[in-house]
């Protein structure tokens, strides 16, 4: 019995190694999970407050004589707001102090007043209240991002302004409200007025162009290469090139876009059309590679059966192979588009890294996209843009999640098992 190995010990060792192996797997998942939670957590913590905005209640008593109701643009709305602010804080005389007082509310408060009167001219001649946005510094104060205990010279908000603020809070004039404007306006240099709609629309239009170009071209290329192309040196070269193209840094596509799309084709700078074409070039290899893999995964028996029943090669592909490969193709397409959604480097070259106030409505309007908007806000000096940056990241992530959800839904719908 001396040469008999200790089977029990070996078995224990194998079990231990099995346990360790599983433990490493669990550890990796836990690590990835922690990183994800920290990342998203820090973004949400920094950014959730951007969905709320400090508002100030102003009381107006405007007579019909002060306003030219047929020509609202001509009235000095800003002046009316300033007059009300002076009434709210009597005793402010110095030029500098008055300036501080006027900066208590957003410079756009006058336009809010104009819109309110335009919507209900009956307000003229009566006393009415209007909630307007506070300026970014006051907003930061309300949200607790400013330390009031610091010496006055180190604060963005002076003692005088703090005095007004505390009094207005006591009078119930200050309120945090949901910032719907964040979703309905485009960029602005006033943090309290800046919104995400322009970039969201720009991203949407750009991706639409990208999808429209890269999906049909990518799928057709994959079908030809996989189903019809003869296997020879040429197709090998093409295949190698497609794989190489997938690894080209995205900025290169931007340079190409500048040289070809803008200079040669004459597509306007900053247009979603130009951005979409550039991103389509970038997305194509991903779609082709994923589509080929999906086509390869369709069992040959399907093709043989269809051919056996008299289907032409075209019918075999269109009626049988492509529908079965569609879930995989769609997944590849969505991954490619998700990549395109997050790109800003290639867009720098074609002028989409820009300050654009008007929300784009067509493919040739100047537009910017979500990652660029995030970059521009992250680079702005105003403190209030910090939370806007995180909020924009959340919107980008939500956009991505929607795209992925669509992919999952489409896959479920078309998926076939055998």
């Amino acid at each position, binding site marked *: 019995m001396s040469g008999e190995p200790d089977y029990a010990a070996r078995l224990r060792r194998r079990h231990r190694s099995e346990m360790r192996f599983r433990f490493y797997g669990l550890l990796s998942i836990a690590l990835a999970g922690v990183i994800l939670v920290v990342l998203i957590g820090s973004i949400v913590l920094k950014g959730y407050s951007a969905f709320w905005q400090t508002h100030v209640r102003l009381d107006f008593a405007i007579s019909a004589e002060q306003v030219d109701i047929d020509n609202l643009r001509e009235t000095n709305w800003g002046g009316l707001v300033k007059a009300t602010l002076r009434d709210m804080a009597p005793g402010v005389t110095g030029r500098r102090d008055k300036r501080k007082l006027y900066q208590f509310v957003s410079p756009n408060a006058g336009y809010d007043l104009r819109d309110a009167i335009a919507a209900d001219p009956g307000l003229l001649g009566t006393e009415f209240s209007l909630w307007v946005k506070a300026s970014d510094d006051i907003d930061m104060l309300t949200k607790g991002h400013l330390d009031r205990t610091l010496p006055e010279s180190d604060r*963005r908000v002076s003692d005088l302004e703090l005095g007004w603020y505390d009094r207005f809070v006591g009078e119930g004039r200050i309120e945090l409200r949901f910032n719907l404007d964040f979703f309905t306006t485009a960029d602005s240099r006033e943090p309290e007025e800046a919104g995400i709609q322009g970039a969201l629309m720009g991203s949407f239009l750009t991706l639409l162009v990208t999808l429209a170009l890269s999906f049909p071209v990518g799928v057709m290329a994959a079908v030809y290469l996989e189903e019809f192309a003869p296997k020879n040196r040429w197709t090998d070269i093409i295949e190698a090139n497609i794989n190489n193209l997938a690894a080209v840094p995205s900025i290169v596509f931007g340079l190409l876009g500048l040289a070809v799309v803008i200079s040669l084709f004459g597509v306007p700078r900053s247009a979603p059309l130009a951005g979409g074409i550039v991103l389509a070039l970038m997305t194509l290899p991903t779609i082709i590679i994923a589509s080929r893999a999906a086509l390869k995964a369709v069992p040959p028996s399907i093709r043989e059966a269809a051919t056996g029943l008299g289907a032409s090669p075209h019918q075999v592909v269109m009626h049988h192979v492509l*529908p079965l490969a569609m879930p995989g193709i769609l997944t590849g397409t969505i991954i490619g588009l998700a990549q395109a959604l997050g790109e800003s480097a290639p867009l720098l070259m074609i002028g989409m890294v820009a300050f654009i106030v008007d929300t784009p409505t067509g493919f040739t309007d100047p537009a910017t996209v979500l990652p660029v908007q995030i970059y521009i806000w992250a*680079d702005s*000096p105003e403190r209030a843009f910090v939370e806007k940056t995180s909020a924009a990241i959340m919107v980008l992530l939500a956009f991505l999640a929607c795209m992925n959800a669509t992919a999952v839904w489409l896959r479920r719908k078309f998926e076939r098992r055998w």
Partner: protein
Amino acid sequence: MTLIPRAAVLTVGGVALAALMSAQSADARDQIRIVGSSTVFPFSTVVAENFGKNTGMKTPVVESTGSGGGLKLFCAGVGPEHPDITNASRRIKQSEIDTCGKNGIEDIVEIKVGYDGIVLANSKAGQVMKLSEKQIFMALAKQVPVDGKLVDNPYERWSQIDASLPDVEIEVLGPPPTSGTRDAFVELAMRDGAKAFPMLKQLRKDKGKKAFRAVSDSMREDGRFIEAGENDNLIVQKLEANPNALGIFGFSFLDQNADKVRGSEVDGVAPTFENIAGGAYGISRSLFFYVKKAHVGVIPGIAEYVAEFTSERAAGEDGYLTDKGLIPLPAADLKKYQEDGARMTRLAGL
């Protein structure tokens, strides 16, 4: 088996075609296009936004391409596909005027809008730094003169440079070479600092500017000067985390973050609004924009945009641009550029 949703494919293809066709019809613009410096960008965008609100015209599109990149685009030609205005955080160069001329742009209007101070700041938790330009050069240059010879920068702590400086390690975060802020910092601080050494002054006399600049313009690469990227907010955050580090960035970021960081005195002058406006603070530069005269009257709104930028309520002493951190021009200078803008006075030469 499901058929491919043919309708979907057709729609998608149709959208692509329609989009391509519509591109052909976009020729004449009714919207101003501005390119150029990332330093002027925050000011230019505020003016653009106010211009849009006040005139009811389309808000100009402002791109941040850097001063050099902007002038390159600007000088590429006349026509709606080329920008109308370019911002610059330095003056246009003769070579750029020549390029413009070659491409048919004879008349350029130069408008100076104000000043921007470049500050060296550290966290409020650290000590107040009182530096001279010479000390800045000694701390940051790749090679410095020691005992009459150029050697690789040996200084590791501020106190080794001068006993009056704190005994902490030298660690400075600054912009990369692609940035206009870096160019200006090198030109205004490093070169002046280098000139404080008689030996380097002699070098400039003997071997010319090029040899001098090879010394004065090279930042050290041993990890004491850290290129922190173009994002100045990031530098502020890093300074908060490390009280011993200094950061180099524009005055507007110091202005916005006065509760977190403090500007160092340079040659005895603190980087305050008044000191930069009065010219006492050494490291400050002028900001410009250039207008293509051939586009005035063709692209609507250019004259109005220039008027808005140079107006009292924008660039004046109490204008909204000063709220954003612009250091305004003296009143007489502002008036001169207002007139230049109104008459579209051609830039006669440098």
